[in-house]
């Protein structure tokens, strides 16, 4: 396929704008993989969401806390060495597995000529802890006369690979080792904002010409006892019988953690055309801002973000994939803000993924971007969520807005479109 045919086939009009004097190249999504409690693979998510399937929610161990657990997976197809799988732990193995499949979907697997100049940008927290060791140290803690003993115990008794798997940037390192992706790598930490910043960095690196290709993604393991304790003690989790995220405010709100992983391949348009790869969608823009979360801040932040996207000449979306967590009051404030923005956004209706897949912190925004990319590949938004407040028709769409309003921060919106939008 030559470049001219590709332009014709995809109906693409290459966009190049200038932002603050810097050339801003057209960026396409050319590969996606999603993994969750509901499905393995981006297209499998699309297929399953066409029907009425209820969310998979279980009580975790004897905690009584609900989680959306990762569906059973065999990571060996992407990580063949059992030693590698073991040392990565569940979180990094999930991320590496998903990244490998995203590379396959973009036609990049094994292509060292491209992978040697592909950036890796990951939004990720530290890996799994050794819970048994933590418990042993806690049980001994009352006898410690010196705080330094705690570090001595940890360094003497922690398995070396467990120590390494707790370094978030080793996810990017493992992706590089497993698949030979040897461009620069960056890792962002910090809950929802980490996913937002990972996408922002990958998008900027591709748009400004630093890289033609960027592998961007993240992973989250909802079944970690330490995280359940952390967010449980913080009173952030939904601790009643399952309800969709928009139905939780009357009982104080809260989110249900969901195991998620998402990786997207971002590629400069001309580069994608020269490779003859079929794009999934275009990235029209991203805007992210810090919010102090004073009253009205979420609405002001989202309006400011949308105004910035509009200045890039973007048209309003036909649908909104919301990353609402279920936490209160941020979920209600986001929904109110989107209604208030309807004069700017048009009558785009909202579909929140968290009711089905749960909240995956660093991975959530990236996962929702992946869901949007699949929907745009098919030119349709997802059919009605039977649990959601607002049914959506399986209508044709060409633009989707993806929101992130984290449980404590991490406000962002991104607009994706079909190529002929």
């Amino acid at each position: 396929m030559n470049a001219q045919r590709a332009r014709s086939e995809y109906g693409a009009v290459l966009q190049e704008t200038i932002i603050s004097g810097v050339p801003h190249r057209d960026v396409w999504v050319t590969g996606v993989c999603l993994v969750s409690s509901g499905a393995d693979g981006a297209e499998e998510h699309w297929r399953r969401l066409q029907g009425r399937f209820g969310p998979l929610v279980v009580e975790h161990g004897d905690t009584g806390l609900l989680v959306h657990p990762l569906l059973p997976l065999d990571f060996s197809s992407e990580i063949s060495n059992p030693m590698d799988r073991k040392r990565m732990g569940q979180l990094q193995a999930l991320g590496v597995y998903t990244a490998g499949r995203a590379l396959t979907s973009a036609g990049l697997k094994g292509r060292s000529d491209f992978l040697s100049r592909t950036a890796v940008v990951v939004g990720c927290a530290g890996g799994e802890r050794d819970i048994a060791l933590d418990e042993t140290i806690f049980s001994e803690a009352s006898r410690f006369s010196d705080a330094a003993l705690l570090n001595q115990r940890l360094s003497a008794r922690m398995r070396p690979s467990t120590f390494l798997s707790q370094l978030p940037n080793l996810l990017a390192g493992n992706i590089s080792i497993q698949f030979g992706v040897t461009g620069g790598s960056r890792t962002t930490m910090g809950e929802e904002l980490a996913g937002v910043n990972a996408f922002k960095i990958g998008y900027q690196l591709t748009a400004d010409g630093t890289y033609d290709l960027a592998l961007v993604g993240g992973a989250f393991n909802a079944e970690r006892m330490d995280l359940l304790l952390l967010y449980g003690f913080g009173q952030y989790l939904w601790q009643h019988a399952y309800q969709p995220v928009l139905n939780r405010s009357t009982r104080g709100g809260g989110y249900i953690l969901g195991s998620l992983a998402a990786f997207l391949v971002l590629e400069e348009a001309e580069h994608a055309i020269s490779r003859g790869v079929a794009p999934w969608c275009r990235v029209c823009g991203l805007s992210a801002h810090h919010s102090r979360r004073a009253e009205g801040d979420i609405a002001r932040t989202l309006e400011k973000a949308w105004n910035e996207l509009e200045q890039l000449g973007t048209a309003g979306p036909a649908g909104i994939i919301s990353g609402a967590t279920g936490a209160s009051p941020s979920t209600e404030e986001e929904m109110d803000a989107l209604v208030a923005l309807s004069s700017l956004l048009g009558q785009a209706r909202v579909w929140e993924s968290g009711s089905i897949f749960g909240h995956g912190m660093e991975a959530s925004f990236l996962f929702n971007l992946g869901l949007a990319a699949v929907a745009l590949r098919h030119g349709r938004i997802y059919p009605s969520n039977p649990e959601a407040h607002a049914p959506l028709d399986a209508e044709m769409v060409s633009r989707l807005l993806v929101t992130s309003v984290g449980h404590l921060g991490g406000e962002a919106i991104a607009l994706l479109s079909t190529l002929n939008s």
Partner: protein
Amino acid sequence: MESKTFNIVADTITEECGVPREKITPDSHVIDDLGLDSIAFLDTCYALDVKLNIKIPFEQWVSDINAGKSDLKELFKMRNLVAEIDKCVLNERTTRSV
């Protein structure tokens, strides 16, 4: 007849690294034949430290190899490795009895 320590080391390599137990013989080289890399070997040493209540002098071994005092090919052969670990066990017992 393989020694008790050999069996503990071989079982640990199988548990930690997924190497088939039947593949591990006294002549196996842990890197060249069994495929352990540095992190896998560190994990194995950690597990042996816990099982045998010893402290394997891994850093000293690396230092000796780098200084040319030990031969990587020889030290990491199972029979020699087990002999070194037996020395650690003996030292630990001696230290405790003193």
